[in-house]
């Protein structure tokens, strides 16, 4: 009887350890998502706030949803910055580069994060563009169906930044 009671006690104590570890993993995941969003938003804001941005491209960004490659496709080639090491900045490559998901070093891909751009409804000017970035720290790619997408978006918190239009409003 005593052995049985002790076994139950020990087993219930041992069961708490995975819960503690899970909390640790989730905290790490939150931290990585925030760091990645900071990394991505800084570059996106720098690219979109350039003085060679045109109003026609800017307007097309309202309502944009997709990954970094798709965002790049929305911007004309004359807008993309150049790199000192040669060639144009490729957001589809530079944003996920060197980032991993989980703890085993799996590479972060474009499908593991999602960018949305919109002109906020409550601002009097179309010169402000809101940008959100969501990312996952598990191999949970952004889904294809609308219903699954909404569920995916509730699983991962959005990180937000605003960009001011600094380009040429006549073009």
């Amino acid at each position, binding site marked *: 009887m005593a052995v049985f009671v002790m076994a139950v006690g020990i087993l219930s104590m041992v069961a708490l350890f995975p819960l503690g570890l899970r909390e640790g993993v989730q905290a790490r995941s939150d931290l990585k998502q925030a760091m990645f969003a900071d990394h991505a938003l800084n570059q996106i804001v*720098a*690219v979109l706030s350039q*003085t*060679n941005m045109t109003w026609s491209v800017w307007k097309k960004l309202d309502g944009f949803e997709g990954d970094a490659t798709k965002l790049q496709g929305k911007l004309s080639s004359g*807008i993309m910055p*150049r790199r*000192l*090491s040669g060639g*144009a900045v490729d957001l589809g490559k530079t944003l996920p580069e060197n980032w991993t998901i989980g703890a085993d070093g799996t590479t972060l891909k474009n499908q593991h994060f999602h960018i949305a751009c919109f002109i906020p409804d409550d601002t009097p000017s179309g010169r402000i563009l809101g940008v959100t970035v969501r990312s996952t720290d598990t191999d949970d790619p952004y889904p294809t169906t609308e219903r699954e997408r909404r569920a995916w978006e509730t699983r991962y918190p959005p990180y937000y930044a605003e960009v001011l239009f600094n380009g040429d409003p006549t073009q």
Partner: protein
Amino acid sequence: MIEVMVAATILVVIVMMLGMLFQQTSVAWRTGLMRSDGYMQLRAFIGAIQRDAGAMIDASRIPQSLLCNNQKQKFSSGEIKFYTMTGTLRTTSSGSLQDFRALNFITYNINGRRTQRRLEPDGTWSEEESSNVLAPPNISARLDKPQVRATHFNIAYQQGTEYDDAGNVISDLNRYPLFLTVETEVTQHGRLYDVGAECSGPDRRFGTGPSDAASKDDIRTWVQQ
């Protein structure tokens, strides 16, 4: 007798399990500590660059005579040099406030060395102040600390050709960047220690400690790398 043996066996198993648990917890704790140490060093480096770069001005637009020994702003994968405009009101020896907003010439190399010089009110440049913001000597010399290494700066510019006030083309290396990123590596390493204990109680000997008498009656502990 059987009951005593069973109870003793269970006790030994439980104690061993607890021991393993504490050992694993301690390794996990130390790994986390090393990781946060590494990120702390990295944050100091990136934070310093971020603060300085946030006050950066385009030096190709200021008079040549104000530059520090005619050094232009320069951005390469191994080193960045730029000018910032910072400052505040400082108190002079007479107690009045003196406007001391000034140009600073800041450099960073990829090994973490930061230098700063300030344009003084009399038009001269102050002595160079330098420090290593990536791995201060008291951290980098310790074997149980993580190794933090910055590998290179990535620089991006707005498209197009840029000209200075005299109409000359500014080379990419000297252009004011649109943004820059820095790539770094953090390597965790450290020593593992064994903690041990031995006893040679009444008196199977050991001895040869302080004045022997079989070292009355030794229980020894040690920490071994």
